[in-house]
């Protein structure tokens, strides 16, 4: 993975302190940490847990693309750490971390917001809420548009599903 950014989509609990430690850079004057946590209600329903599902390889690839876009927009000095959990999380547990290191605070705030908003609409991750009533429901999400779609390009897809244009 590129040294300026690390991404991970995995079931292991998220460690904000560890993530911030990896951002350490003497040229930076700003470190910004966003932590998304499981909330205990949604649209008036009492939530007790959320299960996250992900298409891991494509999710991490898309996150890397988003980080590259952020660096293009906010400068070569930017460093990013993005991690998203999978599996069942209880209320209060961290589901996503976006950490940004940069020379000054302005680009850290903007890049952090950009990465998170893009993650929500482009990265193949889904959440199923579990309610106090005992039932559960997959949440409606954002349709994946033309972002990064590929066409015929090279030959037909193979049994490994590696797709067109793979090296």
């Amino acid at each position: 993975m590129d040294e300026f950014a690390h991404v991970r989509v995995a079931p292991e609990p998220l460690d904000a302190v560890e993530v911030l430690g990896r951002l350490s850079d003497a040229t930076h004057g700003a470190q910004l940490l966003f932590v998304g946590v499981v909330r205990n209600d949604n649209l008036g329903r009492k939530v007790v847990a959320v299960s996250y599902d992900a298409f891991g390889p494509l999710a991490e690839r898309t996150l890397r693309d988003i980080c590259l876009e952020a660096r293009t927009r906010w400068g070569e000095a930017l460093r990013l750490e993005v991690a998203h959990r999978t599996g069942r999380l209880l209320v209060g547990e961290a589901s996503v971390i976006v950490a940004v290191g940069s020379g000054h605070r302005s680009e850290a705030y903007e890049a952090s917001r950009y990465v998170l908003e893009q993650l929500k609409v482009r990265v193949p991750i889904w959440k199923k809420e579990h309610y106090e009533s005992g039932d559960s429901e997959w949440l409606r999400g954002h349709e994946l548009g033309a972002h990064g779609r590929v066409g015929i390009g090279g030959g037909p897809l193979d049994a490994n599903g590696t797709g067109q244009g793979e090296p």
Partner: protein
Amino acid sequence: MRVTVRLFGSFRKYGDGSRLELDLPTAGGLPALRGALVSKLKALHPEFAEDQLVGESVFATEAAVLDDWAVLSDGASVAILPPVCGG
């Protein structure tokens, strides 16, 4: 030809929750795959009524989301990705 469709998100409640095997005419592409998937789901689950969700979903490999004109070969494996909601 045979194509494997990996299931994610709300599609995990169908089949074995992991994947479905579909048989397609060789001239098919993703539109044919989409139709075959709906037929398979209705055969497996007579109560299936999420045709619209299949239409709102995309197919992808581990590398990229696919355009409808992508060509599938026998033994291909793709994922169906419903609308996403990470975070």
